[in-house]
C-alpha cells in the first residue's frame, strides 16, 4: 500500500497529513513553525506522525509545499502552494471554479478553467501580506484565542474603522484604539473587517472567484467572523471543507505518487 503524505511548511505553522489509497486522512497534525529551528521541528513532527500511526516511513511518498518546503529534506517532491491548493480544491468540489486560500502570509486566488487547468493566479502583494500574522498578533495582545476573537467580533456593532493599508499600520492603529479604551469587541471587529477588505481586494484582481463554486482554504477560514465579513463584501457562498487549514497539505498529499 502506498502512503501519501503532504507537508505544508507555512509562515506560522507546519501541517502534515497522511492519506491512504482512498485519500482518507490517516493522520493530520500541526505545530508552530519553530522559527530558526524549523528543520528540527519538521523532523520531530514527522517522526511523531510515524510513531503514532505506526506507518513505515519507506512506504510514504512525501510531497512538500509552503514557503519553507525545502526544509523538508526527506521530501520526494516539492510543489508550490498554488498547485497544492488547486489540487485540493478539485478534490473537495467537483466542478470547482476557484479556490481562495487565506493564510498567515499570503492570500491566493486560483481560478480553474473549464478544462481543469489553472487560470490567471492572483496573489496578495506587499500591503496585503501577513494578514494571518496580524490576526495572531492581535489575538496575542488581547490574550484571546482565535475562537474568542471570532466570537467577540460577531457580537460587535461594527462601529469602528481602522487602517486597511498594511498590517504594520493596522496594528499601530489598533494600539491607539486600545490606548483610548475603546470597546474590545469593536476593536477586534474593526481589525477583522480591515483584513476582510484586503482579502477582497485580492479577490477583485484579474478573475473574480465564482459566487457558488469557490472553495475556501487556509487557517483564516477557521475564523467565522472573518469568513462572514468576506462573504458580506464579496457575495461569495464559499465551500469550506472540514479542515481548511490543512487544505494545502492535503493538496500536496494528493499529488504524491
Amino acid at each position, binding site marked *: 500500500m502506498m502512503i501519501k503524505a503532504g507537508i505544508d511548511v507555512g509562515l506560522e505553522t507546519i501541517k502534515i497529513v497522511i492519506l491512504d489509497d482512498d485519500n482518507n486522512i490517516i493522520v493530520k497534525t500541526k505545530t508552530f513553525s519553530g522559527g530558526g529551528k524549523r528543520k528540527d521541528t519538521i523532523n520531530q513532527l514527522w517522526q511523531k506522525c510515524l510513531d503514532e500511526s505506526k506507518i513505515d516511513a519507506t512506504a510514504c511518498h512525501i510531497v512538500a509545499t509552503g514557503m519553507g518546503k525545502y526544509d523538508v529534506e526527506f521530501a520526494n517532491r516539492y510543489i508550490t502552494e*498554488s*498547485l497544492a491548493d*488547486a489540487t485540493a480544491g478539485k478534490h473537495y468540489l467537483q466542478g470547482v471554479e476557484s479556490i481562495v486560500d487565506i493564510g498567515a502570509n499570503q492570500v491566493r486566488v486560483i481560478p480553474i478553467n473549464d478544462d481543469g487547468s489553472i487560470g*490567471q*493566479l492572483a496573489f496578495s502583494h*506587499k500591503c496585503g*501580506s501577513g494578514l494571518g500574522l496580524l490576526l495572531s498578533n492581535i489575538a496575542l495582545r488581547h490574550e484571546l484565542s482565535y475562537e474568542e476573537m471570532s466570537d467577540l467580533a460577531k457580537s460587535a456593532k461594527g462601529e469602528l474603522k481602522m487602517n486597511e493599508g498594511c498590517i504594520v499600520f493596522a496594528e499601530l492603529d489598533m494600539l491607539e484604539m486600545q490606548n483610548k479604551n475603546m470597546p474590545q469587541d469593536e476593536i477586534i471587529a474593526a481589525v477583522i473587517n480591515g483584513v476582510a477588505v484586503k482579502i477582497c481586494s485580492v479577490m477583485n484582481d*484579474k478573475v473574480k472567484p465564482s459566487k457558488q463554486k469557490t472553495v475556501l482554504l487556509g487557517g483564516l477560514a477557521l475564523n467565522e467572523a472573518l469568513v462572514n465579513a468576506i462573504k458580506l463584501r464579496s457575495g461569495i457562498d464559499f465551500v469550506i471543507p472540514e479542515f481548511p487549514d490543512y487544505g494545502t497539505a492535503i493538496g500536496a498529499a494528493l499529488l504524491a505518487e
Partner: protein
Amino acid sequence: MSNQKWETRPLEIWARAKELRANWQKSVDESASAETLILADGNTGDLDWSVGFCGVNVIEDNPLGAMLASKSDSFARKCRLASEVRGWGRELCGYVNNCWGSQFLGYQIDNSEFPYRDMSIPFPDPCDQHTKRGQQCMDLSPIPRWGGDWPMYLGEDDPLRDEALIDHKVYYMVNTIKQIEKSFGKEFDPQVIIDNIGIRPQLEEYGLRVSQLMTNIPTPISVKDLYSFYTMGTLTKVDPQETLDFWKSFVDELQWRVDNNIAAVGNERYRWMEAHPPAWHYLKYYRYMEQYGAVCVGSQYSHLMAGPVELKEDGTLGHRNIRPAPKDVKLRTIEDAIRFISTEARGHRFKDDEYFRYDAITDFAKAYHVDGAIMPLNRSGVGCTLTRKEQALRLNAIGVNTMHYENSQPGDRTDMDEHHFFDQLDSWMECQGFSKLVD
C-alpha cells in the same frame, strides 16, 4: 540544462558593444574636466543637441541612473539618500534620484568629480514625474532649464490637431535653440543636423530589423542580451558612423543566428514579454526563468529602438509611418529638419499606446508569439501602475497568462521583495504546467 533543442553561442558583437559603451561612459566621466558645456537631457529628444551645438556634451540621466542601480546597490543607495534628505521624494524616480544624488554627493561611482551640468532640457512624458525632471540640477547651480512638451489628445487621429502639435513642437524647439544661443553665446548649426538627418531613420531601420528577427522561434537573443545594445545611438551616443557600423554588424549577426537556428536559450519552450523596463538591480530573474526554458523577448519599451511600429496584416512588424528617404526631401532649415524627424504628432512611446493605441500591447504579444507576460506594478516613474492591470486583462483575453510584481521603480530597489518575487515566478510557471529543467 537538459532538453537542449538548439545550439547556443555567445554573440560576437559583445566586444564591440562593450567598447562603445565604455567610450560613452568615458565621455561622461571626463565631462567634468572637459571644456564643453554639459546638457542634462532626461532622455533623447527629437534634436541632437550635441550635433547642432559644437562643444556641448549631452548626458542623459536615465541610462546613468539605471547603470548605477545595476552596478552598485550601495552607491545607488547613497545617491538616493543624498536626494531624499534634500526633499526629493522617493516616489519621484529611482533613475533621477540616483543620477542627481551623485550630483549632491559631488562624485561619480568611480570617485571622479561629478560633471555638473550647464543646462537642462528634460524630455517630457505623459505620465509620472517628468515635470520634476531637471529641477535638481537647475536648483543647485542655478542653470537654465527648458521644458519640452509632449502634447497629446485622446481618441481618433485628427490631422488638424496633428498639424498643430507639430507646429508647436517646431516653435518651442526653435525657441529653445535661440535661447541657448543667447544664454551661452553659442551658435547652432542647422546644416550639420540636416546633413546627419538620415542617421536616426537608419538606426530605426536597423532597430526594426532586430525586432523582427527576435520574433523568430527560437529567438536569437533575449531581452537581457538586447539591453546591452538597444541604447546605442540614442541614450548612449557615440560617433554616429561607428554607431551605424555597429548596428549593421549586429543585424547581420542576428540574421546569421536566425538562419542557423542559434538560440538565446537552447531549450526555449516558453516565450514571455514584459511591459516597461525591468528592475535594473535584479536582472537575475531573466536567467532564473531560463531554468524553465522560458525566454523573455522584450517589451514595447525595449523595442523602442525600432521607432513607431505596428503589426501588419501578414503578422509581421513594420514601421507605422514611413518617412521619405532623406535624399528625396529638400531640407533647408531647422524647421524642415524637425518636421522630418517628427513622424508622429502624438508621439509613439509605449506609454502613449496605453492611452489611445490599446491594441499595441496585444499586437506585440501576437508578433512575438508569447505565452506569458510579467507586468510591473511600480509606485512611480516608468512602469507605474496606471493601466498595468487593464493591459493584463487585454492579454488574458488573447490567451496570454500574466503575472504582476510590485517594485518602487526600475532604478530603486527599496521596495522590491526579491525572494517573494522568485516564489511567485515558481508558482506562476508551475501552475501553467512547467517545472524547472535540470540535468
